[in-house]
């Protein structure tokens, strides 16, 4: 059937949608329902709120049904996008690259936390942490000490720290894991933080926003005063909102416009306030992530290599 080809479901879009909103002609090849996936990305500090206002806003804006899916696994989202089952989604910076590669996803917008903020405010950092007592002050001191990464697929918890080692110390993929005495995946940023505090590992790569939000809980830890950041990465752009690239251009434009206009609508504003996206959405293009991609490629970090 038609769903065999890996293109989004553009089928039977012309039925019944004309009379909803004017300009029916250009909508003839739009999907009849906008399906959007949501993924908890690592730089999202506040993920507590629901997305009902967003759905209401978008439905009103498009004049068509909107369906949101919360999915905790980005592989699932990317495969769904590649097979035409969803039209758009949020991703983390690195998973966006994968979505771009595998599902032809295109970044189009990004939420901004600060009121009146600009694109400059979307960045966060990968940090290398340690305890004072270990006497580790720079990347090269990691030599012979243990190092924890968060998760193999985490940008700030694995890919960027590793890239830093390769880039700044002149290591290669082959010997970067032999540089520290031990390389461990802890599974999460917080586990890495605890492991450093407890002295189980000497150093760890973590994301700045991720550990700040648990400082409250660990500030009584006896080693908390000793915790220090001894190196920081170049700015990493936050996770973008992504749309499937094979969709009709008019549709993609409309979706982008919907997010950019959000702060001017009552429903949209409600959603933004509830989620602490006080600056609304700013437009981004794939170029913003060229930094991520170029770094990765220049270092020979194709996805396949990263795990070995």
């Amino acid at each position, binding site marked *: 059937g038609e769903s065999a080809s890996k293109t989004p479901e553009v089928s039977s879009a012309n039925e019944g949608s004309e009379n909803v909103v004017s300009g029916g002609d250009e909508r003839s090849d739009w999907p009849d329902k906008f399906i959007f996936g949501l993924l908890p990305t690592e730089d999202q500090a506040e993920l507590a709120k629901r997305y009902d206002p967003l759905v209401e806003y978008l439905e009103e804006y498009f004049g068509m049904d909107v369906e949101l899916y919360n999915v905790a696994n980005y592989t699932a989202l990317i495969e769904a996008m590649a097979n035409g089952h969803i039209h758009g989604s949020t991703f983390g910076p690195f998973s966006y690259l994968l979505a771009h590669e595998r599902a032809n996803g295109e970044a189009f917008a990004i939420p901004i936390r600060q009121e009146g903020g600009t694109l400059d405010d979307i960045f966060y950092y990968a940090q290398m942490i340690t305890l004072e007592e270990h006497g580790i002050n720079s990347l090269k001191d990691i030599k012979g000490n243990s190092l924890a990464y968060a998760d193999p697929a985490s940008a700030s918890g694995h890919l960027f720290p590793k890239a830093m080692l390769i880039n700044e110390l002149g290591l290669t993929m082959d010997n970067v894991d032999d540089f520290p005495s031990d390389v461990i995946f802890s599974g999460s940023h917080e586990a890495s933080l605890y492991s450093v505090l407890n002295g189980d590992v000497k150093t760890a790569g973590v994301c700045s926003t991720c550990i700040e939000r648990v400082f409250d809980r660990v500030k009584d830890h006896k080693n908390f005063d000793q915790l220090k950041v001894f190196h920081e990465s170049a700015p990493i752009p936050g996770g973008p909102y992504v749309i499937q690239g094979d969709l009709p251009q008019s549709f993609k434009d409309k979706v982008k416009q919907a997010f950019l206009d959000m702060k001017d609508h009552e429903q949209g504003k409600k959603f933004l306030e509830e989620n602490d996206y006080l600056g609304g959405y700013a437009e981004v293009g794939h170029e913003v992530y060229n930094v991520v991609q170029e770094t990765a490629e220049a270092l020979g970090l194709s996805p396949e290599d990263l*795990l070995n």
Partner: protein
Amino acid sequence: MYAELMRRKKILFKNQLFIWAIIIAMIVWGWTGTNFNLSFLYKGTTNMAVFIFTDLLPPDISAIGSYIQPALQTIYMSFVGMVFSVVLSIFFGFMAAKNTTLHPLVALVSRSIVAFIRATPALILAIILVVAFGLGTLSGTLALGISGVGILGKAFPDVLEEIDQGQVDAVRATGASWFQVMGQGVWPQFKTGFVAWSLYKMDLNIREAAVLGLIGAGGIGYTLQGHINLFQYNKASVGIAMIFFLILIVEFTTAKVRERLL
């Protein structure tokens, strides 16, 4: 007498009707609530076939190397973790089963503890263990052990409650103590179920990825998951094959041991 039979059948029938009504109501509720519909599946078979034959297959044999070390580690952790959970679960199991418990209240408490362990998400277990014992295989093993109590601590009492009471009575009638009744009357009947479930836990441990991944203990399941997350599906299929192989070994052992005991 036939009329009497019909009257009694009616009582049963009414009750069955009631139970089926509840079950069917739940199914209808679930069905409509989830819009479950299998016709999609038929439409999507081509997509699935494409995925299986172009992405999963052919397996990338060179990936075997990346699995060897985790596989070994998995076996060590699985084995110790299994022993750990078996020991704890035997205790909880005997306490929780109606016919072997020391007191009904003890049974209730045991069942609740086990249910709570089962309800505890991998994530909570993982973070507690990482904080308590640090990253690595030690925590991983303990995680496997504890999560096993959730499974075996439920399975063992269910098996125990099904054994033939007449045989147990006979041992009890000799004046045997609780421990003796368990050892000589219950155990011979229980051991096949015991072996099967314990090895099933081994099977679970071998595949486990969630907790182990969150703990930095690695293991074959986690490596496999890593390949999936990076879309290296033809490396993933090698991992699946290896896990399949390991599970078959466990299954075969189970069958052999049970045959001996049955």
